[in-house]
Structure formats: structure tokens, C-alpha cells
């Protein structure tokens, strides 16, 4: 028995423009990526329901307070007593007028300390704040 040979037409997918497509994707990711900026302190965030997302990470600064009361502003150790928190916040606010502060406070931090830290931010005119929380189901 004789089989007919399949037709000899070769089907080619043109791959010449493949690098262009991949480069386009690459540039998209390069432009939209903001590499992780800060490490911060280890905090256990509280949970809430009425939360909103922070839109622009480029205009966001972070303030961490852990359960021992240690503070970190964008990875610099700061303090209320020596005014370093105020100075950092003020300088950052002068650089970025639309500054948004993301406050990552531990669950166990007493409100007395939270209030003092917020007062420093108010003095530094960093008024747009966001109390960072987890999402409560």
C-alpha cells in the first residue's frame, strides 16, 4: 500500500518581530516597577475593613513603630525627643509636596506614642496620612 506524502508546504511563524514584542513588554515592566524601597521594622499591623489603597508609592514615605516603641522613618532610625523624626519628615515633605505618609504601627503601641508621632508629622506639615492595616475578612 502506498501512502500519499503530505504536502510539502512549510508553515513558518515569522519570529523576526519577536524581540520587539518582548522588548516592549520589558520596557513596560521596567517603567512600572518600583523596587522594594525600605525594609523597615518588624510590626504586627492591626486589621480593618474600611481601607483604601495607596496609589503612588513614589510619593509615599513610611514610618514604622514597633512594639518596643522604636521608630524608623524610611529606614533611618529616628526619635521624637531629639527632633530627628521632625527633621526627616520635614525634609521629605519639602522634596515631595504631595507626600503621603504610610504609618505602620504595631498593634501593641500605646496611643500616647502614636499621638506624639502624629504631632511631629503635623509640625512637619506631612498631613496626608494612612494608618496601614491588614484587610479584615
Amino acid at each position, binding site marked *: 500500500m502506498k501512502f500519499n506524502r503530505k504536502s510539502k508546504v512549510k508553515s513558518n511563524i515569522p519570529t523576526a518581530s519577536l524581540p520587539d514584542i*518582548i522588548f516592549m513588554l520589558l520596557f513596560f*515592566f521596567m517603567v512600572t516597577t518600583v523596587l522594594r524601597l525600605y525594609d523597615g521594622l518588624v510590626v504586627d499591623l*492591626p486589621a480593618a475593613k474600611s*481601607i483604601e489603597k495607596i496609589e503612588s508609592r513614589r510619593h509615599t514615605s513610611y514610618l514604622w513603630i514597633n512594639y518596643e516603641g522604636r521608630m524608623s522613618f524610611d529606614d533611618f532610625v529616628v526619635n521624637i525627643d531629639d527632633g530627628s523624626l521632625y527633621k526627616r519628615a520635614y525634609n521629605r515633605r519639602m522634596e515631595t509636596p504631595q507626600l503621603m505618609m504610610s504609618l505602620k504601627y504595631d498593634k501593641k*503601641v500605646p496611643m500616647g506614642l502614636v*499621638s506624639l508621632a502624629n504631632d511631629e508629622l503635623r509640625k512637619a506639615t506631612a498631613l496626608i496620612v494612612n494608618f496601614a492595616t491588614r484587610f479584615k475578612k
Partner: protein
Amino acid sequence: MLVEKRTKEVGEIPMCSMADIAFLLLVFFLVTTTISTDKGIGILLPQWGDQKDVPKKNIVNVLINAAGQVMIAGKETPIPLIEKDIRERLEAPGMRDLLIVSLKPDKDTEYDVFIEVLDQIKLSGAGRISIAEIEK
């Protein structure tokens, strides 16, 4: 005169591995990208030293003590019922835009409780929330 034709040699850069290189870079960026997960309760702090006089009848005081108990306008309220209580106050005629919820935590109140209460107030739809300064 015989002019010799120049041989046309075309220099080529091999392009077939270009896609591989681009893919490699792409995968790197895909892996290192972390999608923003910063979320929380947004508040606009008042300016330092900015004080306004508000008629007392527009203010509802929400006090939190060090043990995490909440009192709204002199009445103890469990945390899950705060939302309902504040909503009822907002629904009173003419109060929607005027009511100011003044949140007064104790200096030893845990931040966790404060956020729970603030969350409840936000859920009730109150637009004007003030966080009282804690006296030293």
C-alpha cells in the same frame, strides 16, 4: 579601462538570540516586581496649632479607655455596635454634614483598639473625624 566591481559583503549581527536576552530580562523584572500592597485607613491630619470653635451640639465624643472600653456621648458601647450608633446620629435631620466625631483615646489605649474604633466610625460613613491630642 576595467573597473573592478566591489564585492558586497554585508556585516551581520546575529539577531536570533535577541529574543532570548529580552526574555531573560523580562523574567527578571516579572520576578522582582512586587505589586503595591500598601493599604490602610486614610486620614487628613489638622494643621499644627489650627483650632476651630465648633458648636457643642455638633460634636459626639467617643472615648476609649486604657482597657479598650468605648464610651459614646456618655454611654458605654461595645465596639461592634459603634457603626450603628454613629450612623443613627448621622441620620438625624441636618446632621450629615455637621456631625464631628471626636475620638479621644487614653494614652495607654492599644493602637489595635483605636484602629478598630476608627474603622467602625469610617464604616458608618462619618466624614468629619477628629482625633484628639493626648495630654502629656
